[in-house]
């Protein structure tokens, strides 16, 4: 397969990490992700998998293999923390927390994923506030 994954950003934009990706992730979320046996249940139930560059089960594999480019994926920003994967994982891995951890590793090390100026007055006046608060919580460090 010649496709390049993930499809966003370049390696020079990666945040600085103290240890391996697996070590950093483990510290922030304390999930036993090495128990993943790649059954694909998480990806099968994910509502956004068609838009993702890496599937959720690939994301777990990337963490284990210390492939830091997972932090450049579109996937981690498409996840809306719906918890479907966490609920269904037969190994009880909270993949929602893994995705949040990857976002946090990115946000805590660099600029925010979005700017408040990107939102128009019309959007502020029509879209429910819970959407804004949750968007900011997930996309701003």
């Amino acid at each position: 397969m010649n496709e390049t994954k993930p499809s966003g950003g370049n390696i020079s934009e990666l945040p600085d990490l103290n240890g391996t990706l697996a070590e950093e992730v483990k510290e922030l979320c304390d999930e036993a992700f090495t128990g993943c046996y790649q059954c694909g249940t998480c990806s099968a139930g994910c509502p956004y998998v068609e838009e993702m560059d890496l599937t959720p089960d690939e994301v777990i594999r990337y963490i284990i293999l210390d492939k830091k480019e997972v932090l450049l994926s579109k996937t981690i920003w498409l996840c809306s923390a719906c918890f479907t994967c966490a609920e269904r994982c037969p190994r009880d891995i909270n993949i929602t927390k893994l995705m949040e951890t990857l976002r946090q590793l990115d946000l805590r090390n660099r600029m925010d994923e979005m700017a408040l100026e990107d939102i128009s007055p019309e959007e502020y006046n029509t879209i429910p506030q819970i959407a804004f608060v949750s968007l900011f919580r997930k996309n701003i460090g």
Partner: protein
Amino acid sequence: MDLLYYPGCTLKTSAKSLERTAFKVMESLGHRLVEMDEWNCCGVVASLTEDDLMHHLAPLRNLIHAQDQGYQKIVALCDMCCNTLKQTNLRVAQNEDDLDTLNSFMDKESDYRKSVSVQHVLEFLRDDVSFKVLKKKVKKPLKGLKLMPYYGCTMLRPRQVAIDDPEEPTILSDLSRALGAETVDNPYKIECCGSYHTIKNKEIVRKRAATITGYATQRGADAIILSCPLCQYNIDTRGKEAEGSIEGHIQIPVFYYPQLMAIAMGMDPSDCAFEKNAVDPARVLKERGIIK
């Protein structure tokens, strides 16, 4: 009975109509939703990293204020708020050290003594009122109306704060049938509506609305019944927009459950704020002879 009510930001602004209708419905059942004297935004999504206690402060402060007001329970209409408050409540119940840290940080507030529980209004209706009692209060059964219950995420996941079974919930279909309607099942009833992607990725949300609705109409549903203000906006408003961009998609009306409760209990449709819905829900009710 007076119930201490936590509104959250959206119920006071874009979903004000949901609050007004719910207040009237609860009053007619003999219960009063009493807004908390002091409350703040709950933060909407639960803190998900082990070291992040900061984002538990906002929900915890609400639990402390309920405690200060002398109540042992808060009820919430908003699914996302209810989920966030419950998750914080669970975190501090299971982690004494975290509770101590949070209490010391908020030194100007009383200490939280883990004395308050959080309940979704739907849970109250099912467990405290009962759908059997509710059925007896129905004056205009929603006969002939086929509803597809839609649950979304935050009512059901994570399992520890779910108000019903995360894979096969029945609370909205049980409520619908108590109101006299028929229900239509749909494998997408528990799939995410798109959530906050409605701001930066509107096309994803239009696709979600079309997928969820498409299956509903294939199975003969006239309308969708749900609870969450963000789900309602995403499926109703973005679903209406999707009629222009997704071939063959027609958006059916999306009701909040209190709106249908109000109609079934004989209240005037003008009490239901139908004008706030993107797809006019009154039309399908007139077609079924439920309202004039």
